[in-house]
C-alpha cells in the first residue's frame, strides 16, 4: 500500500462523501420547503374556491329571501296570480340579471311544480321533483336550501326559500340561481388562479335541456364530464385530461404546459346533499418556485464541487507537500548515503515539519560522519 496514493485518496473520498451528504440534505430541505409551499398553495386553492362558492350561495339565498318576502310579490304568489306576479318581479329581476350575474329565478308550487320562471315566463307548469331533489326537500322540510344544482337552464348556484301563507302553511317556494362562471372569474381576479368546472355529461344531457348547443360538444368533453366554464379554456384543456378527472376526493398533481409548470387541484363538486355532480379544477403557476428550486440545486452542486476541490487540494498539499514528498526526499538521500554517496545535503531544516526536521538532522549527522 502506497500511502502517497491511498492516504490522500481515503481522505478525499471521506471529504467528498461528507460534502455530498450535506448537499443532499440541503437539497432535501429545499425540496421539502418547496413542497410545503405548494401544499399551502393547494390548500389556498381549495379554500379560495370553497369560500367564494359559499359566498355566492349565501348571495343567492339572501336575494331569494328578499324577493320572496316583498309583500306585493308574496300576495301575488299566494293568490296564484301569474301575470301580477310577473309584473311585480320582472323589472327587479331584469336589473339583477344585468348587474349581478343572476340568470335564474323561479316560483314553485308544492311539491315542486314550476309556477313562474322570471327568466322564461312562457315556460311553466312542469313538475321538477323527479330531477330536482333540493327543490323537493325544501317543500318536504319547509326550510331553506342552498347549493349547486343542475336545472333545465343549466348548472347554477341556487338558493331556494319556502313561502308560507298567513296561517303558516307552505304555499310554495322561490329560488334564485347565480351563474357559475363568476365564481371562477372572481377567483382569477382575486388570487390569480385559473379555474374550470366540469359537470357530468349525462346529467347535463338529461336535465339541462335548455343549454345552448355549444356546451355539450366533443371539444368540451373530458371523460364522463363536460367542461362547462373555464377562465382559460385552452389551458384547462391542456391541464385536465380524461385520466385525471375521474375522482371522488381531492387530488393534486403538477403538469407543464408551454414550459410553465402548473399545480392543479381537482375537487369533486358536490350538490346540497353531498352527492358529486361535477369536478372543479383550480390551477396555479408554480413557475417561480420551480425556477428558484432549480437554481438552488445548481448553486448547491457548485458549492459542493468547489468544496470538494478545495478539500482535496488541502489534503494533497498537506499530506504530500508537508509529509510524503519531504519524507521521500530524505529516503532517497538516505538510500544514496547507504550506497556510499554522501554528496547530497538535506534541504534547509526549517523547510521540514518538526517531526521530519529531526530525521533530516539525523541524516545530516550521518552524512557528516560518512564524509569525515
Amino acid at each position, binding site marked *: 500500500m502506497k500511502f502517497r496514493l491511498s492516504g490522500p485518496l481515503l481522505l478525499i473520498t471521506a471529504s467528498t462523501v461528507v460534502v455530498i451528504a450535506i448537499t443532499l440534505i440541503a437539497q432535501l430541505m429545499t425540496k421539502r420547503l418547496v413542497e410545503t409551499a405548494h401544499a399551502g398553495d393547494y390548500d389556498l386553492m381549495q379554500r379560495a374556491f370553497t369560500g367564494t362558492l359559499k359566498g355566492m350561495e349565501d348571495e343567492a339565498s339572501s336575494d331569494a329571501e328578499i324577493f320572496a318576502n316583498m309583500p306585493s310579490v308574496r300576495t301575488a304568489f299566494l293568490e296564484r296570480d301569474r301575470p301580477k306576479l310577473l309584473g311585480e318581479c320582472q323589472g327587479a329581476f331584469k336589473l339583477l340579471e*344585468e*348587474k349581478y350575474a343572476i340568470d335564474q329565478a323561479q316560483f314553485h308550487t308544492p311539491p315542486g311544480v314550476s309556477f313562474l320562471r322570471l327568466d322564461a315566463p312562457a315556460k311553466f307548469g312542469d313538475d321538477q321533483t323527479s330531477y330536482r331533489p333540493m327543490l323537493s326537500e325544501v317543500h318536504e322540510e319547509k326550510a331553506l336550501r342552498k347549493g349547486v344544482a343542475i336545472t333545465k337552464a343549466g348548472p347554477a348556484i341556487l338558493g331556494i326559500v319556502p313561502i308560507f301563507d298567513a296561517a303558516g302553511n307552505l304555499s310554495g317556494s322561490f329560488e334564485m340561481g347565480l351563474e357559475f*362562471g363568476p365564481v371562477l*372569474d372572481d377567483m382569477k*381576479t382575486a388570487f390569480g388562479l385559473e379555474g374550470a368546472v366540469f359537470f357530468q355529461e349525462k346529467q347535463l344531457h338529461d336535465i339541462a335541456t335548455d343549454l345552448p348547443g355549444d356546451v355539450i360538444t366533443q371539444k368540451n368533453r373530458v371523460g364522463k364530464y363536460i367542461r362547462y*366554464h*373555464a*377562465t*382559460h*379554456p*385552452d389551458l384547462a384543456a391542456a391541464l385536465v385530461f380524461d385520466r385525471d378527472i375521474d375522482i371522488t376526493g381531492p387530488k393534486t398533481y403538477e403538469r407543464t404546459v*408551454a414550459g410553465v409548470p402548473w399545480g392543479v387541484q381537482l375537487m369533486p363538486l358536490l350538490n346540497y346533499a353531498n352527492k358529486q355532480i361535477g369536478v372543479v379544477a383550480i390551477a396555479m403557476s408554480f413557475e417561480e418556485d420551480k*425556477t428558484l428550486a*432549480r*437554481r438552488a440545486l*445548481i*448553486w448547491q*452542486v*457548485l458549492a459542493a*464541487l*468547489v468544496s470538494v*476541490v*478545495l478539500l*482535496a*487540494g488541502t489534503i*494533497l*498539499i498537506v499530506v*504530500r*507537500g*508537508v509529509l510524503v*514528498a*519531504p519524507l521521500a*526526499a530524505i529516503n532517497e538521500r538516505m538510500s544514496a548515503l547507504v550506497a556510499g554517496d554522501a554528496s547530497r545535503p538535506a*534541504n534547509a531544516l*526549517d*523547510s*521540514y515539519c518538526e517531526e521530519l526536521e529531526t530525521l533530516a538532522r539525523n541524516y545530516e549527522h550521518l552524512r557528516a560522519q560518512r564524509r569525515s
Partner: protein
Amino acid sequence: MTRRRPHARAVLLALLATLCGLALVLFPLRLRGAETSGAAEGAPAAKQASAAGRKGEKAAKRVQDAGADDAGADAEPPAEAVAPAEPAPAAGAEAGLTTLPLGKGLPVNVNVAVFFLDLKSFDDTKSEFECTTDVRLRWVDPRLRLTTKNLRGYREFRGKEVEDQLAKMWSPSIDVTNRLEAAPYVGRRLRIFPDGQVESLTRVTARYKTRVSAETFPFDRQRLALELIVRDDTTDEVLLRFDKDDVGFSRAARDAKLDGWTIGLVDLRSEAIPGWNGDRYSQTTAALIVDRVWVTSLAPIFIPLLASLIIPLLSIWMNKATEHGFEGDTLSLANMSIGGLFSVIALSFAIYSSYGVIANGDNTVTRLFGVNYAMLAITLAIVVVCFRYNVIARLFGPYVQREAFYFMSWALPVISLATSIAFLLVAAA
C-alpha cells in the same frame, strides 16, 4: 301658352302630392322601428333619425357582406344574425349619452383584449418593439339598448363613421402609456349590439417601449407589452378587466414571426395604478411573451467568452515546478496574463457594443466576464507571489510549493469551468 300653364301647374301639383304621399307613407314606417329605450325615446330630430336610419342600413349591409377578414374573427358574432336595417338609436344624437353610463352601476367594466397581428421588429438594445395590434374594448351602455323584441345582430360603424358615432356617445378614455409613435393610419370599427353592448376594435401599427430584463440571457423571456390605462376616470368609475372571451381573443397571429425569437402566448393582467389624493386608475397590460432563440448567441458570445478563460490558465500551465523552484520565466508569464486582460477587455467592448442589452446589470455574460477577470487576477497574483517571489516556498518549503502548484494547475480550470457552466444553467433554469 294659356293652355299649357294650367297643365304644367297640374303636373307640378300632382308631383308635390305624390312626394307628400310618399313621405307620409314612408316616414311613419321608419319611425315604427325606432323604439329606443331610455334617453333615446322622444328624440325628435327627424333629420337625424333618418340619417341614422340610413347609417343603420349601411351598417347592416356591411355586416352581411363581412367575412372573417379581421384578426380574431373567430371571436366575432355571426354576421348572418344581423337585424334588418334597424335605425340608429336616437340615443346617438342625445348629448346626455356622452356621460358615464350608470345603468349597470359603477364602476363601468370595460373588457380589454389585444390581438398581435404582425410583429415588425424587436430591438432589445433600445427596449423597443414595433407591431400591428387589434385592441378590442367591450362595455355595456344600457342607454344604447334597443327595445324592439327579438332583435338580433348589431350595428356596425367603420372608419370615419366610428369617430362620428363615438363623438355622440360615451367611450372609455384609454391611453397606451408605453406607445412611442404610431403610424398615421388607424383602422377603427365599432359595433353596437341591441342589448347595449358596445365593441370597439382599433387596429394600429406603432412602436412601443418595453422593459427588457437580460438577467437570464441568452435564455431570457421578454414581454412585449401594451400598457392600457384609463385616463380621467378612477377605478371607482371605470375598471378595465378581461374574461375568457378576451383571453381567447388575445393571442398572436398564427403566421406572426420575429427573427431570433420564439413567439408564445399573450398574458393579460389588470391592476390599479395610484394617482393623486388616493385616486387609483385601472390599467390592463397585454403582453406577448417571446423567448430568445439562444443558439444564435452561442457563436458570437459564449464560445469567445469560454475560450478566453483559457488565457489566464496558460500562465500556470506553461510553467513547471521543480524541487528548487520554477522553471518558467516570470516576466513572460506575467505578460501572458496582461495580454489576456487586454483581450478580455477588447472582447467585452465588442460584445457590449453589439448587444447593448447585456451591457448593464447582472446577467450571464457579465458574470462570465467577471469569472474571466477573476481568473486573470488570480493567475497574475500566482505569477507574482508564487513564481516570482516564491512566497509559498519561503513560508512552507519547496515541497508544499510544488504540491500547491500541481493543485492550482487542475483546480483553477475545474472551478472556473464549473462556475461558468453553473451561470449558464442558472440562466436556463
